């Protein structure tokens, strides 16, 4: 028995068992009910579910959908920031920005890997992204118009992402939780560099200060939308919370984010573009204005300022890279012995299990 956790070698045994059952025409039976009970007990006990454990199909589907969307967001999210690498105004900032965009590629990789533990290949997920059948975070459909936008993304967008993601480090699905631990550790640099960038602008020349304020004005509301629709309109929330894929409601996290940002904005010397934003003594939280959910829905539907551009660039990079991937595969086929070429994807463990 190998001493390792074969996260990636996937496709749950139960998946095939179930498929076989279906083929034989048997209905879900007592065995399934027992497995469900084991699964639910594990989740209730805050135990982790691991790739080859039995899990309800809906749990699996929810995870794949969420991890894929998360991974897609990381790699599409490279674009608005990479837009400024070649124009970064100092060499120090340029190094920071390159390292940050690189991290996003890395985070995409961690997340695609986590998704692959459920038997869905990266290629498959990318195909779905390119075909518009899977989403990425709508926030990246907004353009980075000035250098200050790089700071606003770091502070607000990464800040919102972290607020969302820290609870995911305790997500019930082991590989996802582990990927998130790694990602959250790395993300804190992202947020801090954004904040520091904005601080330099805010305390800089008049033009720089105005640039920073303008960026915050444009990114504030879209950042609040990143937490998703209000709880009463969120279709997936309840089940995800029960499964401990999600730990807090959209509105809870949004409120937490607002409360964190208000004093940070003050320290920056910048204002948040919401006339209704004020401390509510009674609630011990900030009240804030109504979010324009029409805009959110429109961007989601594909009508944001950059939807078309983002997906087109992603598709093009993938298509233009095809000959490179083919070349390396062809080289490997010529120069590697069959046993290390791993021509049989993912069947092996299944059979030996």
């Amino acid at each position, binding site marked *: *028995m190998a001493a390792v*956790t074969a996260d990636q070698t996937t496709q749950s045994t139960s998946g095939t068992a179930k498929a076989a059952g279906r083929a034989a025409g048997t209905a879900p039976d007592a065995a399934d009910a027992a497995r469900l009970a084991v699964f639910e007990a594990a989740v209730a006990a805050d135990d982790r579910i691991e790739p080859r454990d039995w899990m309800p199909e809906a749990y699996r589907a929810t995870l794949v959908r969420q991890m894929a969307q998360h991974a897609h967001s990381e790699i599409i999210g490279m674009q608005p920031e990479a837009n400024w690498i070649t124009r970064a105004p100092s060499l120090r900032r340029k190094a920071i920005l390159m390292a940050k965009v690189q991290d996003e590629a890395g985070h995409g990789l961690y997340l695609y890997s986590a998704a692959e533990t459920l038997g869905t290949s*990266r290629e498959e997920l990318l195909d779905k992204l390119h075909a518009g059948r899977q989403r990425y975070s709508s926030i990246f459909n907004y353009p980075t118009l000035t250098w200050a936008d790089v700071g606003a993304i770091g502070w607000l967008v990464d800040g919102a992402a972290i607020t969302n993601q820290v609870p995911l480090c305790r997500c019930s699905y082991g590989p996802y939780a582990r990927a998130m631990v790694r990602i959250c550790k790395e993300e804190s640099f992202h947020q801090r560099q954004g904040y520091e960038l904005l601080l330099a602008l805010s305390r800089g020349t008049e033009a720089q200060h105005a640039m920073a304020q303008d960026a915050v004005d444009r990114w504030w509301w879209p950042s609040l939308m990143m937490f998703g629709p209000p709880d009463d309109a969120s279709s997936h929330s309840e089940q995800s919370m029960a499964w401990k894929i999600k730990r807090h409601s959209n509105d809870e996290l949004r409120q937490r984010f607002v409360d964190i940002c208000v004093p940070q904005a003050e320290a920056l010397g910048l204002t948040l573009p919401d006339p209704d934003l004020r401390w509510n003594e009674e609630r011990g939280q900030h009240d804030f204005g109504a979010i324009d959910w029409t805009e959110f829905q429109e961007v989601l539907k594909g009508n944001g300022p950059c939807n078309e551009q983002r997906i087109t660039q992603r598709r093009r990079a993938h298509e233009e890279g095809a000959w490179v991937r083919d070349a390396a595969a062809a080289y490997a086929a010529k120069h590697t012995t069959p046993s290390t070429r*791993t021509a049989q994807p993912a*069947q092996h*463990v299944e059979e*030996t*299990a």
Partner: protein
Amino acid sequence: MSSSTDWPLWEVFVRSRRGLSHTHAGSLHAPDAEMALRNARDLYTRRSEGVSIWVVPSTEITASSPDEKDSFFEPAGDKPYRHPTFYEIPDGVKHL
């Protein structure tokens, strides 16, 4: 792209410093072992997380099945005499 050009998946194990064993860090795609090692270096040690890397084709790992969990692991649970705390030693006896 067609699945024929899919690069295989590799599991990455990183030794974080000398004296520790390699632990599973994650996975990645690479066309062959040499590139897998390099990709692993770039991805999993870019913040000085490692001093040594192993890469293993994911398909080469044989894992125990969760369905056999009981027969594999439970029998070890009722053998407390394998642990030093099982034994009572008179007070005052040292170095034991």
